[in-house]
């Protein structure tokens, strides 16, 4: 390889001076941005009562805790140990299936409601600004209030049990999916819609034959994504008494049943993994491998 030809020193100095001037302003902006972030972090640290000393002192507790919840499985008789570790498996599996069914029914009901409302919230299908605005704001409220807050209120109104979880998930999902769906609808190709309304179709017929075929696969994909999220959410809804495995898990943590904590946590993680994998397969099939995200 040839060695590089050096520029004459005065030209190099001039060029590097120009380069420094050009990068200086960008660097100043970056530094200013970093300073703002650091100041905000300091403020947030004060608000969140960050105590680095307690953290440093007690970080040992974290590893100790992880050590304590490690499965009590030895090498002498591993199979018996695993049996003892998962002593409550049938009951836990029943609770886990309850959790998944809660997520399923909540996603389905919320999906149906979001589906119906998304067309009313789309600017390209609905003329009335008032109707659109009302639907959008309503969806926003459903979306912003977390499902566990709905569950807290519903537990008082409907009594303890998984039905509360289903309703809470359904309402939150309506808001989340309604918004995503309406964004999909707003981005469709408008020519089929024009074609149908030109040949005298009613609004419902236009939606059915011009809009639905374009958006259905995207809707299904978003719905499956939401289902994944809801399975995770449903696992903790039991914390407030809304059914599923959460109640059992909270009991295990609060009562320091260490082996149970790791056993149930393992089950939850495994379930979430399996559902993630399955829905990813289905989604890839639905929207085609080239546009899969």
């Amino acid at each position, binding site marked *: 390889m040839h060695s590089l030809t050096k520029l004459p020193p005065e030209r190099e100095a001039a060029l590097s001076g120009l380069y420094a001037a050009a990068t200086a302003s960008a660097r100043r902006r970056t530094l200013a941005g970093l300073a703002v972030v650091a100041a905000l*972090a300091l*403020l*947030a*640290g*004060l*608000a*969140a*009562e*960050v*105590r680095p000393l*307690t*953290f440093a002192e*007690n*970080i040992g*507790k*974290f590893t100790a*805790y992880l050590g304590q919840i490690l499965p009590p499985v030895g090498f002498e008789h591993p199979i018996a140990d695993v049996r003892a570790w998962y002593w409550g498996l049938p009951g836990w599996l029943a609770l886990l*299936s*309850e959790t998944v*069914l*809660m997520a*399923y*029914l909540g996603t*389905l009901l919320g999906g149906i409601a979001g589906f119906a409302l998304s067309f009313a919230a789309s600017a390209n299908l609905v003329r009335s600004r008032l109707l659109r605005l009302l639907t959008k704001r309503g969806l*926003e409220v459903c979306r*912003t*209030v*977390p499902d*566990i*807050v709905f569950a*807290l*209120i*519903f537990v*008082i*109104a*409907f*009594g303890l*049990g*998984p*039905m509360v*979880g*289903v309703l809470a998930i359904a309402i939150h999902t309506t808001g989340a999916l309604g918004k995503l769906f309406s964004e999909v609808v707003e981005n469709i190709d408008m020519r089929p819609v024009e074609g149908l309304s*030109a*040949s*005298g179709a009613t609004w419902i017929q236009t939606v059915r034959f011009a809009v639905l075929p374009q958006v259905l696969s995207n809707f299904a994909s978003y719905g499956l994504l939401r289902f994944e999220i809801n399975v*995770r*959410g449903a*696992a*903790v809804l039991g*914390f*407030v008494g809304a*059914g599923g495995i959460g109640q059992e*898990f909270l009991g295990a*943590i609060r009562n320091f049943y260490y082996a149970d904590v790791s056993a149930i*946590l393992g089950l*939850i*993680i495994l379930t*979430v*993994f399996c559902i*993630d994998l399955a829905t990813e397969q289905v989604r890839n099939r639905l929207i085609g491998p080239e546009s899969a995200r």
Partner: protein
Amino acid sequence: MSAARTGALRAEARDNLARLRGRYPAQFRADRAARARFVLALGAVTGLAALACWRLDVSATRILNGLGRLGSFAMLMLPPSPEGQFWTFLHALGETLGIAFLGTLAAAILAFPVAFLAARNVVSNPFAHFAVRRGLDVMRSVDVLIWALIWINVVGLGPFAGALAIACSDFGALGKLFSEAIETCDRRPGEGVVASGGSSLHRIRFGLIPGVLPVLASQVLYFFESNTRSATIIGIVGAGGIGQYLTELIRVLELKQVAFLVLMILVTVAAIDWVSTRLRRTLIGPAAR
């Protein structure tokens, strides 16, 4: 086109339906296989839903009974008022924002280097990035509230545990998103750096980071938005913020204050959304998103 004319068009087409059917058989042929698949899928979905209704004891009577009570609760919520606790609530809201900000920042700082290890175009060893990816997946699939319960055991009750919980669960999510952004990054700047004699660290610093940084920053902002929402509930298990008040007030049925708190949360979240959307636009340019 006037409604009368389209109506006439419809009527004419309907009258001539048989003739049209004869002339364009392809357009009128029913796609039996597709229809059968659709009916099957619909049957499966409804069947599973019926099973779920039965298992979870969902019934119309229970819903109707509860709706009556819910209606009376809604009446009790009006008018929303803080009942003299406005400053306490505001302080709790500040705590919530602090939790969200600090948690997101810590997660982003931790996830940034790890994401490069999980990216296929940086670490070519398949086992390394597979292991990192699965580790991130495990962090991600544990819910924020569960992380909060674990951290409460370590640093005690309070907002610090909440910030740590958000940092942990977002570390997994951001690590995954960051590594995907790095993998889809343009290869050519990196190749240019290597061709002009840069080392692989130079390739990452000058070929990859400038390209991905705006994308990563926009994702971090998006997570900050969604974390202000999750930080409002983290108090339910005792990890600080406005959720603590929300839970207590719902339990004792102080519904006017509950309604006021929910309104405060809605306004804050809307404000944060607005600010971060504008920031994101300036970061990645108006064309994207």
